[in-house]
């Protein structure tokens, strides 16, 4: 045996040993149940005839690169093909082929979502981000942009601020996320939702390839010349067919979106100083101000939020946990462990409210908002967090990230490698407060699994107040160390909370579970009518119903 072979063998053996406890990568697609080589070749010929060989791949190393989601451990599976459409006509042709040959199509942008991964054989991933990535129009006068699926929040933001505008806000996954995928599939919840609502509220028009390959233009986009300025009709507002948490391209593939832009009083390029990763930003003080308030309790914080919303002051507002503050701020795992676990530095900030105010109309308005804000905070016992080096640094490096050009959710996963969302609640602030209270039954269930799950978020949850605090969004995650058996524990927590919700008849822990049978049936009927062959990202949107029904039946059987 040659020296090189020995070296290689030893190296591979070492890799395998180390990986065995860390991860289970996707299996070759040929090993999937139901895989049919003949059908594979037929699909391949069809795809190549539409897109050309260059933009179709079934190479295992290419499909492997589309096998993981953001958690990178959940349901890893290689699709049979990845294709790169270059136009709406390409997308139409692929969808029509899918109807004819019966394979599933899943559109992806950034490809972070676990829901947009292959779920079995005969799956084609449409990577829309690579060749359909133009900003087609930026209408400064009418304050909107028309974008293709590959456009990122950062790109749109950079172009919009040149003309004094900005978008509705970047999500916690980061400004590298694609606008369309995030708005359509994830509802684009963020801190600027306080003023501008969720992402779908900002859609003015859509071009959608339906599951049968037809194009649907929604709102005024259906008029000649595709004029995008109004999405409400005529007739029923069809945006709801396509958008919403849990839709994920299951009712069609969005190929163009007209998206509202909002005023941006500030520089025409983002002011950033220093080198990565310690990059700082200073927005002009006469136009932008950022505050970090600490309250005596979460109850007081929530009450203050009601009042802030009632006064309609503030631009981007949210409450984050010490764990999130640490995750976003720290520049190394070592620093994270030292500050968060060692010194418990960030716990001193809790309950923390971050408020950004902006001179949207005038400097006088900014002064007014600041006065009102400070008065409300004082009335509810809040106070500004005393400035020290970390607070100053946090404001310039982290606090203003939210809702603007750059947020990076995976920083919060830096000390375990993954996360798992276990609850997601939308509702009035009081409800969010109840679910996030540390003695709530939901968090008591969660805390039974710590350890082995790493870390407990000790002070309730992140709160995104939306639309001047008319309602709020909350998401609870757990952080298992990245290893299959530990991730399973995280999934157990989620199932436990879902079962417990059904038992208690408490619909507040996991969104979507308690949808009435009438609504469920309507959604299923719409899906079946639009997509009789079940080719558009199946089985979405039926996942929720199935899981709910399973747990409900379990409970009934037990009783």
């Amino acid at each position, binding site marked *: 045996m040659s020296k*090189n*072979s020995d*070296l290689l063998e030893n*190296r*591979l053996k070492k*890799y*395998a040993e*180390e*990986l065995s406890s*860390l*991860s*289970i*990568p*996707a299996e*070759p697609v040929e090993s999937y149940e139901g895989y049919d080589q003949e059908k594979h070749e037929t699909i391949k010929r069809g795809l190549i005839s539409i897109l050309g060989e260059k933009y179709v791949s079934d*190479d*295992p*190393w*290419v499909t*492997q*690169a589309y*096998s*993981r989601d*953001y958690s*990178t451990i959940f349901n890893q599976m290689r699709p049979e093909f990845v294709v790169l459409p270059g136009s709406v006509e390409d997308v139409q042709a692929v969808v029509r082929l899918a109807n004819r040959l019966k394979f599933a199509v899943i559109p992806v942008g*950034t*490809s*972070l979502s676990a829901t947009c991964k292959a779920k079995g054989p005969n799956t084609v991933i449409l*990577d829309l981000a690579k*060749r359909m990535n133009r900003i087609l129009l930026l209408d400064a006068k009418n304050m909107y942009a028309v974008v293709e699926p590959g456009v*990122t*929040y*950062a*790109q749109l933001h*950079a*172009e919009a601020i040149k003309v004094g505008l900005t978008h509705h806000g970047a999500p916690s996954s*980061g400004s*590298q996320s694609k606008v369309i995928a995030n708005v359509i599939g994830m509802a684009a919840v963020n801190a600027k939702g306080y003023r501008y609502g969720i992402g779908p509220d900002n859609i003015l028009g859509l071009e959608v390839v339906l599951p049968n390959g037809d194009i649907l233009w929604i709102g005024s986009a259906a008029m000649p010349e595709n004029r995008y300025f109004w999405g409400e009709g005529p007739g029923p507002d069809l945006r709801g067919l396509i958008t919403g948490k849990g839709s994920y391209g299951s009712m069609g593939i969005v190929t163009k979106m007209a998206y509202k832009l909002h005023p941006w009083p500030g520089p025409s390029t*983002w002011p*950033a100083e*220093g*080198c*990565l990763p*310690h990059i700082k930003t200073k927005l002009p003080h006469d136009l932008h101000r950022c505050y970090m308030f600490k309250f005596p309790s979460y109850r007081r914080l929530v009450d203050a939020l009601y009042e802030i919303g009632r006064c309609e002051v503030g631009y981007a507002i949210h409450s984050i946990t010490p764990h999130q503050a640490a995750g976003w701020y720290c*520049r190394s*795992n*070592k620093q994270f462990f030292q500050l968060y676990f060692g010194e418990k530095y960030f716990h001193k900030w809790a309950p923390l409210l971050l408020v950004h105010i902006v001179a949207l109309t005038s400097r006088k308005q900014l002064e007014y908002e600041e006065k009102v804000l400070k008065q409300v905070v004082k009335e509810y016992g809040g106070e500004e967090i005393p400035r020290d080096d970390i607070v100053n640094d946090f404001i310039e490096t982290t606090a203003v990230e939210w809702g603007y*050009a*750059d947020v*990076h959710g*995976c920083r919060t996963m830096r*000390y375990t*490698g993954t996360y798992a969302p276990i609850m997601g609640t939308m509702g009035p602030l009081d409800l969010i407060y109840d679910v996030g209270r*540390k003695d709530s039954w939901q968090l008591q269930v969660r*805390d039974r699994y710590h350890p082995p799950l790493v870390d*407990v978020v*000790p*002070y309730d949850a992140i709160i995104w107040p939306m639309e001047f605090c008319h309602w709020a969004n909350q998401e609870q995650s757990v952080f298992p*160390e*990245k290893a299959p058996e530990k991730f399973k524990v995280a999934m157990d927590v989620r199932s436990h909370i879902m079962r417990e919700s059904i038992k208690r008849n408490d619909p507040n822990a996991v969104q979507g579970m308690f949808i009435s049978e009438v609504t469920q049936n309507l959604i299923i009927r719409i899906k079946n009518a639009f997509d009789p062959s079940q080719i558009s990202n199946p089985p979405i949107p039926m996942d929720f119903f199935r899981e709910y029904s399973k747990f409900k039946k379990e409970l009934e059987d037990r009783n």
Partner: protein
Amino acid sequence: MSDFMVGLPTNSRWMEYRYSLPWVVQACSRCTNCKHLHGWRVKSHRFSTICPSLDYYLFDSHSCQGRMDIGLALASGKLKLTNRLVESLYQCTLCGACDVMCKTQNDMEPLKVLIELREICVLAGFELPEHKAFIDSINKYGNPFGQPPEKRYIWMPKDVYQVQSAEILYFAGCTTSYLRREIARATVKIMQNVGIKFKVLGSNEFCCGKPAYKQGYIQIAKKMIEHNIKAINNMGVKLVVTSCPGCYTSFSIFADEYSKVKRKFEVLHFSQFVDQLMDEGKITFEKNVELKATYHDPCELGRLSKAWRPGDDILGDPKNYETPRKILNRIPGLQLVEMERIKEYSYCCGSDAGWAFPDFVLRTSIHRLEEAKSTGAEAIITWCPTCANNFLHASRGQIKIYDAAQIIQMAMEEMKKYEQEFRFIGK
């Protein structure tokens, strides 16, 4: 219940990072930041990506994230090496832009993974024919260009004199010596002009090892750097000055990690050396250089110019971003304008994939030149012979290309006094 239940990770490596390929590939969170410029730095839609490989080949398998996935599957035996897979691993310039973005999120070294995957390919006998040819040349001639060693220093101007007692050695490097000799000529002229006594290794200078290292031929790279260190140690010099940032990092980072022979000298890139001379008042710029130009940060002189430790504030040595700009800004008449992607997130010139994928390299260079032209600059200045060489091929005369040493030479008054003195000493 206490308000703070601590469940720490059981694997201490989450707390104290140590590099290993399996660890990094499994820790990739697929966040996709490796494909885009940091959000705060994006100035336009057009110049907002950072990965030349993904920009050209389009599928995620050609991004850092995709290659982490491939690494994961290879390391766990779920994917087998094939010729086409190996090609895809080599269709990357190893510019490290992905590495920079990744480190803003996590304690990770994906660039090391990319190199280690190439090493695996070599060990498994999957060599690209183009690489085999240049490796054979390195083995045979000590340079990757198939050029005879005795021709290495034929560029040395007749009126520049080496001083054998000098404590400074000029290490020109292969690209400067064989392909961009005007850079080497400018460099030694500047040194002589300000009275710096120097000498060279001559035909005993071998490739620094960086090209072999980057293509996964680690043993050959070690052999090269060890040869050079041994030869230089024997010459008793205290300082080595390089024109090429790749040579600089080969001595300053690679050698420290891999070479059994330890160097007994300091190493500086020529930009750092000029900076020292300026601080000492030895270099002044007298002549006007009427030029509107932009500066291209070479990867090896920027983000790859310093070994990384978790928690480091700055990626690369910040001095290597500021020094060239400081020097160029002092040149009278020269108007320096900035491109959108600079410093640690500079877009690569594409050269390091040049051995096997010329189309990819050309497209990458052209894209960077377009960014340079968008500033209104009439010239692009860099401080790396490989970047300069690559840009010259791609520019087709549409924009002027200079190494900073050439600009400095233009700005300096020619002084003959040292020529006389060194001629005497040299003899």
